[in-house]
């Protein structure tokens, strides 16, 4: 199967008055048509920035420093705004984190969905446009769409707004959907609903999805493949089975151990010690080394390359070097070990 999206050695930095913030550092991954890739990591590790840099939705202070973005083999790295707006909505679109702010407060829901339909099909008749808007609203589970298309975002609850945002994102039949923590800002019960909805829609339409989250529990429900990000880098990538049952990076071990389900019978939840480094001046060597109880001396000297575990599974840790000592993952590090 050909790659739909290929990101090669992408580095993105924000140039602010405190200095260069290296938000994304040398990230490579690919996405096939219809596949669901989860991007997992702590807040501020560059997950959102990575997605937004692919869609070129970052503010002017952000620059792609190096690397390339290929879509169906075409290099879009240096596309300008006038080229990008033709791709957005049709090739890829995005569901944002906070549905309370991502809709235009002064425009009716129907109008906002209709605008997303019309932008790629300008010659659509009024009736056809209306039909399409109603169809989209039904698709994302908004009941009684005829009554509700005239309502404004402030009439909608958070979950309903997120459904509307999803309808907008799907309006142009995009090949890729970026879901940027789409459930983080919602109530727990609503989170599950939206998650199920995303999965249903994905099954129905076969949209390739990049699912950004910091919640590994969510990942297990939706993802085909998982990429774990830390301090702007992908530190481990593999199929969902590989990440959950045979994780290789100490950071992934930590994330899995921190799942509440795996701390059952213990007094306290596990937490990875320390804080992620600032990305203004990332430390030398492996950015995770100072929080890593399995760190080797070389971790403080040199960044580990991506070691191949299987055809689909890669991890950036010196522990995979043939010269490294044997380490047994902690209990809970891989699901079976707990």
């Amino acid at each position, binding site marked *: 199967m050909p790659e739909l999206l290929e990101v090669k050695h992408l580095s993105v930095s924000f140039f602010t008055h405190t200095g260069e913030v290296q938000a994304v550092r040398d990230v490579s991954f690919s996405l096939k048509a219809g596949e669901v890739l989860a991007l997992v990591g702590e807040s501020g590790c560059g997950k959102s920035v990575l997605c*937004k840099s692919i*869609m070129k*939705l970052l503010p*002017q202070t952000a620059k792609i420093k190096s690397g390339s973005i290929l879509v169906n083999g075409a290099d879009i790295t240096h596309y300008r*705004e*006038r080229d990008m*707006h*033709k*791709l*957005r*909505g*049709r090739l890829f*679109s*995005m569901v*944002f984190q*906070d549905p309370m*702010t*991502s*809709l*235009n*407060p*002064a*425009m*009716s829901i129907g109008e906002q969905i209709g*605008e*997303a339909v019309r*932008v*790629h099909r300008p010659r659509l008749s009024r009736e056809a446009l209306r039909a399409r808007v109603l169809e989209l609203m039904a698709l994302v589970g908004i009941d009684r769409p005829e009554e509700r298309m*005239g*309502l*404004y975002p*402030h*009439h909608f609850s958070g979950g309903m707004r997120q459904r509307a*945002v999803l309808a*907008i*994102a799907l*309006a*142009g039949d995009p090949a890729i959907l970026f879901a940027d923590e789409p459930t983080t800002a919602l109530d727990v019960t609503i989170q599950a609903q939206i998650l199920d909805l995303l999965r249903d829609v994905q099954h129905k339409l076969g949209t390739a999805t990049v699912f950004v989250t910091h919640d590994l529990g969510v990942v297990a429900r939706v993802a085909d493949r998982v990429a774990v990000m830390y301090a702007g880098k992908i530190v481990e990538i593999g199929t969902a089975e590989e990440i959950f049952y045979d994780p290789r990076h100490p950071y992934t071990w930590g994330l899995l151990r921190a799942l509440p389900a795996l701390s059952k019978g213990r007094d306290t939840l596990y937490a990875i010690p320390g804080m992620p480094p600032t990305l203004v001046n990332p430390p030398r060597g492996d950015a995770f080394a100072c929080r890593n109880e399995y760190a080797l001396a070389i971790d403080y000297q040199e960044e580990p390359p991506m070691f191949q575990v299987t055809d689909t599974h890669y991890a950036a840790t010196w522990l995979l070097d043939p010269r490294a000592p044997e380490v047994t993952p902690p209990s809970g590090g891989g699901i079976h070990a707990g």
Partner: protein
Amino acid sequence: MSIWNMALGWGKRLLTLLLSVFLLVTAVFYVSRLAPGDPLVAYYGDRVERMTPDERAWAKDRLGLNDPITVQYVRWLGRALHGDFGISYQYKMDAAEVIASRAGNTLILGGAGFVLTFSLSLLLGVLCAWHEDGPLDRVLCKLGTAASCVPEFWLSLVFILVFSITLRWLPSSGAYSIGGGGLGDRLAHLALPVSVVVAGHLWYYAYMVRNRLLEEVRADYVLLAKSKGLTKGRVMFRHCLRNALPSYLSLMAISVPHILGGTYIVETVFSYPGLGTLSYESTRYQDYNLLMLLCLLSGTVVMVSGMAAQFINQRLDPRLSARDAAGVREP
């Protein structure tokens, strides 16, 4: 139900407006009579100097100026409520007639100034926001900051010096040439005063438009709008400008008295026969009746503008309209 609520709301506002106007005219009535000066000069001119004390007393009595201020006030208020605002001492005509003969000139000057300020500031604001932090934006913003510090009376004098005296392109005073009065002549007389009014206010409002727009541009919903595939222009005009416009329109409504105040100053410098020069004269010569009516008019304009601003905001922003908050909407 909702119509009743609305009627009640506007009734309250109308009452507030009437009360405010009442307090204003009361204050002005007392304060103007405390100011030093001789109102007889306005009525009798130089002859006042040759009057005997008896003649003066008689003259004052005739104008009703010998009574205690409160008696004068009650008498004025009673007549005003019947639509009789008294005569202008200086013009010896009904104050209302004097004002009516001048109001047109001010409406033309203020109206042209208002429309030009409104449209140019919108244009400049959008231009700056579009090229945010670009060279054009930076130059215009700095120029605007400098220009908005220039007082209108000074700018008027500079314009007269440059365009009327040095270059001799445009007339320096009046609303039309004596014996003239064609459209071209009127426009030539308007050019300088209108330019000053616009130049004095333009930058402030352009800056407001720019910043309001940029506030919208930075809002989260713009990201979603962009990710739909909308062009920059469509995002800017259909989303950002549309959301910024209600507050800008209400700002413009509040600005009516602001710009009107500007025309008063400019009229005085250019000796333009409008309400501004009239207000200045009436204060200076203690032409009480005229002054009161001008105050009443100006005050009403200020307050009605404020109400209009509120009204515009409510009608254009769906979040603020009471009917919508109840979830009811016309099909």
